[in-house]
């Protein structure tokens, strides 16, 4: 049995607006084990990024998180920033969506890498730079010593994302959170990047959380996945199970709106309707306005996330067979 590295319990994130509150994430629960790759899938606004930003203590000023995110016996949620600094970057690291803007344009690459080791490993500057260059080589950057001296704007997008990966892995963290790490990259680079993620996290025993809206990214890489809608997890389970036998209508819809992996669909169909506004979630099941399988109960009561055996969970009242024909 592999070790559990992160246990998230009842994590909720709210944002205070002018005169109201918005719940971006509600009651999120999951565990992560060593070397595992968990995909968190959902449309934009489903709360998937905010959940993990809250664990990293990176919420916007008006955001507040409640619940628990246990790293060993330490709860990261609600911890003050200076205490949190002892863990983030060292035990838990994050890579962001846009490599073009996520590196500081006025600092050389080596400075941005080395500071992590200086802080968390206590290396002196020279030693930190040497280690940084080694890591750059490891993430497949040619001429790493030269690139380390470059400013970010002198590097290509793929190269910058490699730098970001190198930066996140410098301390061989227990957990790496990658928020849409390939979205901003060329398709050819995307595949390389995913391979890199997979091999490096295996080498270091790092658990990887892959936040994405692209099921194509999930398919070849992740072990388990969690589908999010309107701030809540609606289905969880092994990737293969969910792909071949989705049990939530939203998962089904996502699969059919993604090329390549929609094995059973002859054509590509986007899900009807728009993602919900978090300020005005419908009563009952949040997905009900877009759901082809809804019935009366869905309009009144919100389905809880319940286990359905084989380590799967779903939040849906519909028990019949989900057939895509009905959706179309």
């Amino acid at each position, binding site marked *: 049995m592999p070790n559990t590295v992160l246990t998230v319990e009842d994590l909720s994130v709210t944002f205070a607006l002018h005169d109201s509150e918005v719940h971006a994430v509600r009651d999120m629960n999951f565990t992560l084990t060593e070397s595992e790759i968990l995909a968190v899938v959902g449309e934009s606004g489903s709360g998937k990024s905010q959940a993990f930003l809250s664990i990293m203590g990176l919420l916007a000023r008006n955001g507040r998180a409640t619940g628990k995110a246990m790293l060993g016996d330490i709860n990261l949620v609600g911890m003050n920033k200076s205490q949190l600094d002892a863990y*983030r970057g060292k035990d838990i690291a994050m890579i962001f969506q846009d490599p073009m803007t996520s590196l*500081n344009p006025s600092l050389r690459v080596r400075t941005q890498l080395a500071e992590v080791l200086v*802080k968390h490993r206590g290396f002196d500057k020279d030693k930190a730079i040497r280690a940084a260059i080694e890591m750059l080589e490891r993430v497949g950057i040619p001429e790493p010593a030269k690139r380390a001296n470059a400013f970010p704007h002198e590097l290509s997008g793929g190269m910058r994302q490699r730098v970001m990966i190198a930066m996140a892995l410098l301390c061989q963290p227990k957990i790496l959170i990658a928020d849409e790490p390939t979205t901003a990259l060329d398709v050819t680079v995307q595949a390389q990047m995913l391979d890199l993620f997979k091999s490096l996290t295996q080498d270091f025993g790092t658990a990887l959380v892959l936040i994405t809206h692209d099921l194509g990214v999930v398919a070849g890489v992740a072990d388990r996945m969690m589908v999010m809608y309107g701030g809540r997890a609606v289905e969880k389970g092994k990737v293969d199970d969910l792909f071949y036998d989705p049990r939530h209508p939203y998962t089904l819809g996502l699969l059919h709106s993604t090329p390549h992996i929609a094995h059973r669909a002859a054509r590509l169909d986007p899900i009807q309707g728009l993602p919900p506004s978090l300020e005005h979630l419908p009563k009952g099941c949040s997905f009900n306005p877009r759901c082809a399988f809804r019935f009366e109960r869905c309009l009144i009561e919100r389905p809880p996330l319940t286990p359905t055996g084989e380590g799967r969970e779903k939040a849906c009242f519909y028990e019949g067979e989900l057939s895509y024909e009905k959706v179309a």
Partner: protein
Amino acid sequence: MLGYALRRVLSAIPIALIAVTICFFILRLAPGGPFDGERALPPLVLANLRAHYNLDQPLVVQYFIYIWRLLHGDLGPSMVIEGFSVSRLIAIGFPFTLTLALTAFVIATFVGLVAGMIAAVNQNKWPDYVLVLVVMIGVIIPNFLMAALLQLWFGVYLRWFPAGGWVNGSWMHLVLPVTVLAWPHAARISRLMRGSMIEVLGTNYVRTARSKGIGQRLVLARHAIKPALIPVVSYLGPGLSYLLTGSLAVEQIFGLPGIGKYFITAALNRDYGIVLGTTILYMFIILALNLIVDLVYAWLDPKVRYR
């Protein structure tokens, strides 16, 4: 970087020359002259005087004489204060003006940057509101009114500082003038710094820096301040030139022996030599400041250098 600097210096030269030309002709084409005093001078004396200062020659010739002298660093004679060259007057008055302006500049820039940073980090909390208030006062009260109010309060009622005048080497006499000069400058700097710092603190790269757990102090010092300085730096050049010109007025108000005193008297007496000399001096300073700002800018934002 060196090539960039050289290119910038070369491009400033024609601008300086044209600006000198404009000033020269505007001054000369205006009606009235330095010898239209209350008492009309006898024609012969007037003619001699005019000949002495080359005023009897065609304007174009005067212009070339002036440029020729200027190239040799000679700003010509004063036409009203006898036996004084403009360069000498500047040598007497300008160091004081420069000291006053630079003191105000250094203090104000430092205070403004720090205040702007504190306000940005505490956005919409009390330090921010206090700053907004202080900035407002600094920006909307014109310097002569501010001077009057400070003189009245600290000079007359509280008697903390002398309300005006100058005793050599006494810094007490500089407190109020420097405050008057520095306040609006600090206000504008802090406003700019606050805005750009808030923007920078919201960028992805600062979020990255926070995610690395390097601590709030390093995040600010290494990752946020340098990029946040970029819009502020472009204001420093114009800012210093406002301080230098503003200093002329402040000297007048507080009765300080800077170049402002000579300039305003010279303007009233139509003393071309001093007016033109001072204006040209200021113009060169402003051009030089813009140049320096461009170079600092290139250092702060590496992308600029390669253009």
